[in-house]
């Protein structure tokens, strides 16, 4: 029993020391959301790609519940989720993307809580299908969702 406790203590100390040395040499763990555009499903986009676009062309759409959007939604984002009356939210979206009619906003980026969040996919598909061609915009789902946005600021 004594030997077992001693062994566990040795393993714990060695593991801890190795982790500490690694952290000192390599730095803190990378919390950014890994994203390779080649591996993404169609209409999904990496945050790094979005950051390469002209911000004036982008309309951010938050597909989370209203409380989450109010709490930490992207500045200037619009709430379009699948939990409230679609007709009302869609109306606000159409008026916002149309804006002054210049057509400068031609990219819509929808985000949710995390990758594969079905709300952002549903909202993106519906906006694309109903208004993408008429109003002249592309719709993308942000890979990693809010997690990717938060990791960017860390």
């Amino acid at each position, binding site marked *: 029993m004594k*030997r*077992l406790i001693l*062994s*566990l203590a*040795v*393993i714990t100390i060695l593991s801890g020391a190795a982790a500490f040395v690694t952290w000192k040499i390599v730095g803190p763990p990378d919390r950014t959301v890994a994203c390779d555009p080649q591996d993404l499903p169609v209409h999904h986009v990496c945050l790094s790609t979005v950051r390469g676009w002209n911000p004036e062309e982008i309309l951010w759409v938050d597909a989370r*519940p209203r409380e989450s959007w109010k709490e930490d939604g992207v500045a200037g984002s619009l709430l379009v989720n*699948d*939990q*409230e*009356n*679609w*007709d009302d939210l*869609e*109306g606000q979206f*159409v*008026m916002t993307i*149309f804006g*002054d*009619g*210049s*057509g400068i906003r*031609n990219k819509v980026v929808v985000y*949710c*809580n*995390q990758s*594969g*969040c*079905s*709300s952002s*996919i*549903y909202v993106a598909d519906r906006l694309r*299908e*109903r*208004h993408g*061609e*008429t*109003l*002249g915009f592309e719709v993308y789902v942000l890979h990693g969702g809010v997690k990717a946005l938060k990791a960017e600021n860390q």
Partner: protein
Amino acid sequence: MKRLLYPLFLLASVLAPARAEMAFETKLIEIHASPDDKSVRGEFIFEIKGQDETIKDYDAKCTCLAARVEPLNPDRSEKLKWEIGEKGKIMAQFDVSNFRGTVDKAIELNLIDGDAPIVLTIRVHVPELVKMEPSSHKWDVGSSPDAKVFKITVNHTEPIKILSHSGNNPNFPYELKTIKEGWEYEITVKPKSTEGSGIGLLSFRMDCQFPRFNRNIAYVVVRPALADEKDSRVVAPKAGK
């Protein structure tokens, strides 16, 4: 040497647990909702195989979807520890009151021993008793103000009539034509001018017994043609040669 091997063996045994499985009969449930359904329920039935299993957590990624594990423990608390051979189910209750068409929602289930979450999908088909097609029409700035047509079609066993209708932009006058009362209508829109950008909304109130189908909206837009739209208009005749 023995002293060295012992901790290594201990470490390996910690890192390589036996394979356990929460085996589901299906991970995708499809439900056809009726027009008056406010919510639908699905059951994902599972059996524990390999070794005992513990649910770490589970989450439905939408406030419209509630999930719970059944059965409960004898003291009515949530049963998260499952023994080999036990059977249970994940109950999903999906609020479909804001949906039309086909929609997928997922529940993610994490096990103590699992690497990746188990994804359980509930797919619901919500009928569209009244369908407006298309949802919007556009004219390019400076183009000919040609007439364009919307269609309202009723996909129900009973007729659904238009009670009232309105437009919010006088640049988009429209004409409503009844093809078959209660079943099919056509709305023809011809902008007065396409000289500048503009947007309008046409609203149709129906007499459907299910409130979610009572409001139908179409959008009409005059906007500048995008660069790639102009390009495609130029390229198209060449491609036809």
